[in-house]
């Protein structure tokens, strides 16, 4: 699964750097999820046991988990955790599988790159316009919105790295062991 990397060569340094970034993003996403659990419990405690007002918790948890989704995406891609329909990739082998992997990667890359740009626009608009959430906790929206361009940007970077690893033969198409031949 892990691409074959050499130390000194520039391309390999790039690939390792991207992997490190993706791992960092995975840790950040995990931290957001933990924070969400803690805050949910705090909210239930404050409301049920202390009988006090809860204002910011719902927003924090909701925004936090959206953030975790985007920021965690590159890590999940690196560890091949985004599920796919692997019917055809398993049916074919060799060059055909390589070309299919190339198509799949380029299509996904096109999507993530496009949405990264669009997400940056949205973030910038929220920042420049001083947008706030309409809920009771007036969050300045550029803060939670930042997760989208950052996460999708790193996701795009990880896709570029995957494409490089695929084209240069450092990674097998779809990460499938080539010994696992076609025809299931």
């Amino acid at each position, binding site marked *: 699964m892990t691409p074959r990397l050499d130390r000194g060569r520039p391309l390999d340094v790039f690939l390792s750097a991207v992997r490190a970034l993706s791992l960092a993003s995975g840790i950040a996403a995990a931290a957001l999820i933990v924070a969400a659990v803690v805050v949910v419990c705090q909210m239930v405690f404050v409301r049920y046991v202390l*009988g006090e007002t809860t*204002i910011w918790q719902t927003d924090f948890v909701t925004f936090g988990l959206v953030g975790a989704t985007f920021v965690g995406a590159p890590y999940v891609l690196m560890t091949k955790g985004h599920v796919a329909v692997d019917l055809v990739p398993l049916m074919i082998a060799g060059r055909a599988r390589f070309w299919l992997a190339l198509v799949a990667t380029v299509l996904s890359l096109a999507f993530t790159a496009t949405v990264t740009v669009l997400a940056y626009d949205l973030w910038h608009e929220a920042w420049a316009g001083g947008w*706030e*959430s309409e809920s*009771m906790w007036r969050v300045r*929206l550029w803060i939670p919105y930042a997760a989208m361009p950052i996460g999708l940007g790193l996701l795009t970077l990880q896709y570029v790295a995957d494409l490089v690893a695929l084209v240069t033969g450092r990674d097998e198409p779809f990460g499938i062991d080539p010994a696992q031949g076609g025809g299931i």
Partner: protein
Amino acid sequence: QAETVTLRASHQFPGGKGDARDEMVQLIAREVKAADVGLDMQVYPGASLFKPHDQWNAMVRGQLDISSLPLDYASGKVRAFGATLMPGLVRNHARAERLDASPFMDSIRKKIEDAGVIVLADAWLAGAFGGKNGCIRKPEDVAGLKFRSAGKTFAAMWQKAGASIVTIPSSETYNALQTGVADATDTSTSSFVSFRLYEQLKCITAPGDNALWFMYEPVLMSKRNFDKLNEAQQKAVKAAGKKAEAYFRKASSEFDDKMVDAFKENGVEVVTLTPEEYDAWLKVAKESSYEQFADEVPDGKQLIEQALAVK
């Protein structure tokens, strides 16, 4: 004649079920078609195109033509819109009509237009509030209650009166009341019916002549797309909007009656506020929601004064 322009209208209310806000949009759709100026309209009810809170930006960007939405949904973008969901600022349907013709609403409509959207039809919806264990008439009645509120400004008032505020998504309000996570809530009269809250509440405070709860929920149109229409089409859309507005004026209080009937049928006690009770609440609101709004919005104080000046 040029190719027919198809306008897209979106709202979050049930379609074809007599909801007055849906009816307003459908009426506009029928009128613009009948005007025979090369206009057609496709209505997407029930949030089937955009999520409720996304509709504003979609109009600003020209991706949605027409929508009926609580203007407060855009108060994160234009803070002054918070004035359109403010406790005690409207009081009753007759006064809402006078408010529409006042400098207060001129200021609001100006801000809407500056943001890239225009108003086709004004509409003020009355709301109510109810408790799981008893009636809410005076500020003392909410002390210690766990209150789920539809808006920030109302929450500030309930909190000032001694309630603790619970933030729950509207879809979970029913459940929260059932299990006791919340024991009181406020929202528009139509939502009280559509969420079937009469199954959970013991007493509800209906609008009557001294309603605390009013919300501005106009039919809006993307300015960018309006400007693209030819003159005849613009006229037709405006005229249709005026008809929708007139329809709503008549229908709005029937709306409240419908809620009262639904709650009475289900054995829920229905009360209204006396002028004295209303004034007591207004005092609480002045010390909380109004003050907060004046602090946070540059011309907030002036807006409130404009609204209160209306007879």
